[in-house]
């Protein structure tokens, strides 16, 4: 099997060299162990066995798998997706020469090289290259189906913070994991979440104990390297009373002609007075200029603001993937709890994005803010889809939503689908949406001052997205700004 993979990798390398638009489009020669292609109960058992999981975990997976077989793919999003053959993919790919977790020295140097190339500080270095004043960042690196390294563990443990791959956490902290796993996103929530329950292979678990302010940024970098492989990671973050954590997530994948599936589930819980800040820069391979290849990104992200005064803030910069289907949401149960959603989604060429949020206000005095900036170029389609719901008993709820769309060129589409459902008169709900293009005057002005067309567009787009970008931790903001420019290359004549 390995030979075949190497041949395929070679072909991918060649393809990667031909098209240099996608910065992270190279794949790498890592020997990989696959589960047999296809998806049956045996696949689920294989994954569970590979992970040495306890019985309850296997039962949970099988239950999910059996239910998944009865479900249908959702069709309500403004997305045009050819039928996916779930049997024509690998559900588990593990780099051979598996490192002993926790010991960086034993990580395959080739993998380290990849992360280095991605600019991710997998070594315990304090500063990201080229960014002054950067803080420490602890990293969990997920390579295909497994977590290959988690850094700064000792320092985090001194603060009482648990930062583990989820497969380790299932074994080491079964009670904590069982208490919350599947409680925020129930097993039967939706087609892709249920699939994830059955076949998730790795991901990150974070627990911040009561009163602890996590001493550094935590982050996970996801990389799909192997071909024909789906990635199904699962993240669970529990912020106990009065704690705080800022978590970053970055994603890349090599260029492949086939579409690859990514179906992740992220669950967050914030108890009384706890705050979670969750930032994503999603740069999965978007496919080529003709719309061939690219990642199908079906992600279920949800936060439970369970405690009084709890707060969860989602910030996302979505530039990658052929298809994005993603609605990071907040269930605001706690009194005076706060939910925030800041999003920039860029689509170019034939990309399709249907993304937004749900703010479910059940708690008295709960507040939410939604700022969505969609940028459509090429032949792409970019949809904001959101729900703001106020329950009858939720007094004094506030929501403000701002959805702005920017169209570049006349072949793309920009759509806004906000749902507003209010059942309590004391709510104050405001929604505003605008659609605009970059004016000729703006372009001329910028170019007259010496910028070329692409630089001018990048500048104006960054200004358009500024409100969201400034929510990102500084290290990410710089990266995200560059990414916006790169994603729109070739979009101006």
């Amino acid at each position, binding site marked *: 099997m390995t030979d075949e993979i190497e041949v395929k990798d070679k072909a991918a390398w060649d393809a990667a060299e031909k098209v240099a638009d996608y910065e992270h489009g190279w794949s790498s020669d890592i020997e990989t162990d696959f589960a047999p292609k296809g998806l049956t109960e045996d696949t689920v058992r294989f994954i569970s066995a590979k992970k040495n999981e306890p019985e309850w975990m296997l039962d949970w997976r099988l239950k999910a798998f059996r239910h998944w077989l009865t479900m249908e793919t959702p069709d*309500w999003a*403004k997305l045009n997706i050819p039928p996916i053959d779930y049997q024509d993919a690998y559900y588990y790919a593990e780099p051979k020469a598996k490192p002993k977790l926790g010991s960086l020295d034993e990580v395959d140097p080739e993998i380290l090289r990849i992360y280095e190339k991605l600019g991710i500080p997998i070594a315990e270095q304090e500063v990201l290259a080229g960014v002054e004043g950067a803080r420490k960042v602890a990293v969990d690196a997920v390579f295909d189906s497994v977590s290959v390294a988690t850094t700064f563990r000792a320092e985090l443990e001194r603060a009482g913070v648990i930062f583990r791959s989820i497969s380790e956490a299932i074994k080491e902290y079964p009670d904590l994991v069982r208490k919350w796993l599947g409680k925020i996103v129930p097993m039967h929530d939706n087609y892709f979440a249920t699939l994830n329950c059955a076949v998730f292979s790795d991901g990150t678990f974070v627990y911040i104990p009561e009163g602890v302010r996590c001493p550094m940024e935590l982050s996970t970098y996801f990389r799909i390297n192997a071909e024909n492989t789906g990635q199904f990671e699962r993240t669970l973050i529990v912020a106990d009373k009065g704690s705080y954590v800022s978590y970053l997530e970055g994603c890349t994948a090599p260029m492949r002609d086939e579409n690859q599936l990514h179906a992740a589930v992220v669950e967050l819980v914030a108890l009384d007075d706890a705050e979670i800040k969750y930032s994503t820069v999603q740069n999965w391979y978007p496919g080529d200029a003709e719309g061939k290849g690219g990642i199908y990104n079906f992600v279920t992200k949800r936060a439970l603001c369970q405690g009084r005064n709890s707060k969860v803030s989602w910030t996302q910069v979505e530039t990658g993937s052929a298809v994005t289907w993603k609605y990071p949401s907040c269930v605001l149960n706690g009194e005076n709890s706060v939910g925030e959603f800041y999003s920039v989604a860029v689509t170019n060429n034939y990309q399709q994005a249907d993304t937004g949020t749900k703010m479910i206000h059940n708690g008295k005095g709960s507040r939410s803010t939604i700022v969505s900036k969609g940028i459509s170029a090429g032949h792409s389609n970019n949809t904001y889809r959101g729900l703001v719901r106020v329950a*009858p008993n939720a007094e004094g709820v506030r929501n403000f939503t701002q959805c702005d*769309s920017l*169209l*570049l*060129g*006349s*072949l*793309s*589409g*920009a*759509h*806004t*689908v*906000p*749902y*507003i*459902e*209010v*059942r*309590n*008169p*004391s*709510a*104050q*709900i*405001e*929604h*505003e*949406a*605008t*659609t*605009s*293009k970059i004016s000729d005057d703006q372009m001329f002005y910028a170019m007259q001052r010496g910028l070329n067309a692409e630089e001018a567009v990048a500048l104006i787009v960054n200004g358009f997205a500024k409100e969201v970008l400034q929510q990102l931790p500084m290290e990410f903001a710089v990266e995200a700004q560059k990414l916006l420019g790169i994603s729109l290359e070739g979009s101006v004549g």
Partner: protein
Amino acid sequence: MNPSAPTRRDEAWRYSDIAAVEAAWPLPAAEAIVVPAGGNFERTIVQDSGTIHQLDIAIGKGAAAAIHVLNIGGDYGRVELNVTLHEKSDFKLGVVQIGGNTQTLEIVTTVTHAQPKARSSQIVRSILAGKATGTYLGKVAVARDAQLTDSVQSVKAMLLDRSATANAKPELEIYADDVKCAHGCAIGELDPMGLFYLQARGIAPADAKKLMLQAFVAGVFEGAADEEMLTVAALKKLVDLV
């Protein structure tokens, strides 16, 4: 041709009183209105008996259409407009929905800008008391060639009781880049400070409420041929409610 009655899974009926819809099913064909090029069309719809109105309106080149809707009557009242705008045409919609008790009132619009330089404006004001539900599902679709489209949706709802529900979905589907499309939506209750200000000047609470609700819907029927009739009917319903 009329398949089975819709369910809540159907986007356009997601907040409807399904039992009432089933009772009315099958619906007669929608009324088709063609406004010829350069023409001028005006229509007033007063829904006061619990019916479903469906109108298809095609507005020709350079033509104008204005629809004013007062949606107040019956247990389930729905007004559905399917509007297509051709070059340089103009569409104006003014809607007031006032509901109490267990009423379900809906205004559902699809406004398609099929050609360039057309304008559309939709103003919807809902006042809901008791266990009433008021819904606005409004889609503005701008076709690929419909450059210089100018479209506005202004949606506001006022809830008078904690048992009332307001739903809104001001949707945009845009395929042209040189357009001005804006929508605004606000849902809330009467400003308590405003009510106090009126009372501090000597106006009784019920009158203060009425005055502010009148102000809330003021202007929606401005310029309508039936402006006075509509205003009087709206006020009468308000008086019943407060």
